[in-house]
């Protein structure tokens, strides 16, 4: 029996045990229509009552001469942004301020932004249900489906390709250009790698790799307009890298190619998990057998550091710091090491920051553009939080009770 049949049978048995209640559809629709209207009315009434009460309280304080004194005691301000779970939201993202986007809830108005100074802003409401969301490194734009939106104004701009579910985009380090991977055909076919600007035609660089069902296939690890390089990995079923290419941004020429050991059959522990620095200068290779990572400088194909018993999840902007977590040898790569994450400067070997006890890495991180800051999501139990680690190694929680970071690095989570 195939796994598909196994799983289907399980859910069919579950459906037989717990059949949908009679009249579920009609009752649910009716309930939703009723509650939706009732809630809106209740919210309106509550708003009016709150306004009347506020006016009455202020009038009373003025009348008894207590208004000035009220400033001298801590005031409780019942506003949505003063929730004990979330910091104050400062309004729309100011122009030119780099931010990291994250979801408080996955909904059109659920996107928020944290500046590298720790301020929290509200992202414009966007039609997120039309597709996946990938942020530019500075957070000024997001790609949603085949449209790029300004995160402050929600102004749309078409990406360099039309509606096509077989295209995956990654923003470049200038936050304007994009790298694209387009699956050329069906199962077993390669992908086209191209670059482009929103509103302009794409430029094809290369056709490489292979797409096999359920495997991520050719994946952009770094898209650097500034250094004129695109790093692409052929990723297998279990996060294992088969090939790694560095393409020249202008000519598409393969400047570097490396092949890795791959698991020879299902159940054999082997392979290498790779991530690249956003500037396309370094790649970290975590080996499933040794449970350790090496840092490779791509320009001269030199190993520059070894992190014993660590898995590297990602780099800072220029690749000098990594997010790493302790890993055991001979563990399948499919199980990423997420407990006790830390930020390590691989040049000195110094651990600059460690996550609080009990927190695990949620799987997404972002690098501060042209800086050394790193943002990541940490989970404690079922609660997620966004943390930022500054150049001085000081880490702080910026917001809590979040779903996950948007980042431009999704795909291998």
């Amino acid at each position, binding site marked *: 029996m195939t*796994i*598909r049949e*196994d*799983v*289907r*049978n*399980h*859910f*069919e*048995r*579950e*459906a*037989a*045990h*717990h059949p*949908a*209640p009679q009249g*579920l*559809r009609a009752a*649910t*629709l009716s*309930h*939703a*229509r009723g*509650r*939706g*209207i009732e*809630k*809106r009315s209740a919210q309106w009434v509550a708003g009016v009552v709150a306004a009347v009460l506020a006016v009455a309280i202020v009038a009373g304080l003025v009348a008894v001469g207590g208004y000035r004194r009220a400033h001298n005691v801590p005031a409780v301000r019942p506003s949505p942004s003063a929730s004990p779970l979330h910091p104050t939201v400062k309004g729309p993202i100011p122009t030119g301020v780099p931010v990291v986007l994250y*979801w408080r*809830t*996955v*909904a*059109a108005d659920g996107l928020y932004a944290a500046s590298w100074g720790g301020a929290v802003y509200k992202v414009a*409401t966007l*039609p997120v*249900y*039309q597709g*996946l969301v*990938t942020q530019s490194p500075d957070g000024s734009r997001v790609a949603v489906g085949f449209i790029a939106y300004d995160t402050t104004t929600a102004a749309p701009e078409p990406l360099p390709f039309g509606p096509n*579910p077989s295209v*995956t985009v990654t923003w470049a380090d200038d936050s304007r250009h994009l790298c694209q991977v387009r699956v050329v055909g069906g199962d077993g076919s390669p992908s086209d790698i191209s670059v482009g600007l929103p509103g302009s035609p794409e430029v094809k660089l290369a056709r490489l790799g292979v797409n096999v069902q*359920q495997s*991520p*296939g050719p*994946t952009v690890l770094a898209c650097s307009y500034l250094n004129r390089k695109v790093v692409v990995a052929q*990723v297998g*079923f*279990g*996060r294992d890298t088969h090939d790694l290419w560095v393409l020249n941004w202008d000519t598409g020429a393969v400047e570097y190619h490396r092949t890795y050991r791959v698991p020879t059959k299902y159940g054999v522990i082997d392979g290498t998990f790779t991530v690249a620095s956003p500037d396309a200068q370094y790649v970290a290779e975590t080996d499933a057998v040794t449970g350790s990572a090496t840092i490779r400088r791509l320009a001269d194909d030199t190993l520059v550091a070894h992190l014993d018993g660590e898995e590297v999840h990602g780099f800072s902007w220029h690749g000098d710091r990594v997010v790493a977590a302790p890993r055991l040898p001979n563990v399948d790569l*499919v*199980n990423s090491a997420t407990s006790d994450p830390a930020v390590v400067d691989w040049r000195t070997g110094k651990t600059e920051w460690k996550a609080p006890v009990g927190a695990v890495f949620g799987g997404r991180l972002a690098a501060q553009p042209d800086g050394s800051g790193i943002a990541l999501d940490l989970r404690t139990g*079922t*609660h997620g939080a966004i943390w930022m680690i500054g150049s001085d190694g000081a880490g702080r929680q910026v917001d809590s009770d979040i*779903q*996950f970071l948007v980042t431009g690095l*999704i*795909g*291998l*989570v």
Partner: protein
Amino acid sequence: MEGEREAVKARDFDAIVGPWIEPGYRLAVAMLRDPDEAQDAVQEAAVKAWRSLERLRDSDQARAWFLSIVANQCRSTMRRRWWSVVRLPSRDAAAGSPEEPAVQYVDLDRAMRRLSHDDRAILHLFYFLDLPIDEVARVIGISAGAAKTRIYRAVHRLRPELELMEEDLR
């Protein structure tokens, strides 16, 4: 005018969301493993869908849109249900139904119950509802590549556990 607008919205809502109520309930049962909580989650998701119907620009996306609201509602329910970490399966669920003597299914069902709610959701969407990988990704809120990896990981977690149980029985 207001009444007419509400009537049109109600008609659209029933046509767009109605077909996905039962699949939503099935997804919620798969994630929460509690039919009462699943019903509550679907009802709450439907309220949210009603309130944000205007934001659904393409009715072809309705299935992924509504199922993603259900999945998020289930995650919120799980977050509130702090006691779920020590909660034991109900006697019915643990023992299986007396009408179902198929003992060979018990191990699989037990293994499925040990998966996280997100893993069960992703397997339910891909293998039971037969959603294409892009739509599974949209419902869960991740990229297609990540969805593929997570399906693989979930299956991987399921298979070794089954093998382990077979070894234990020997």
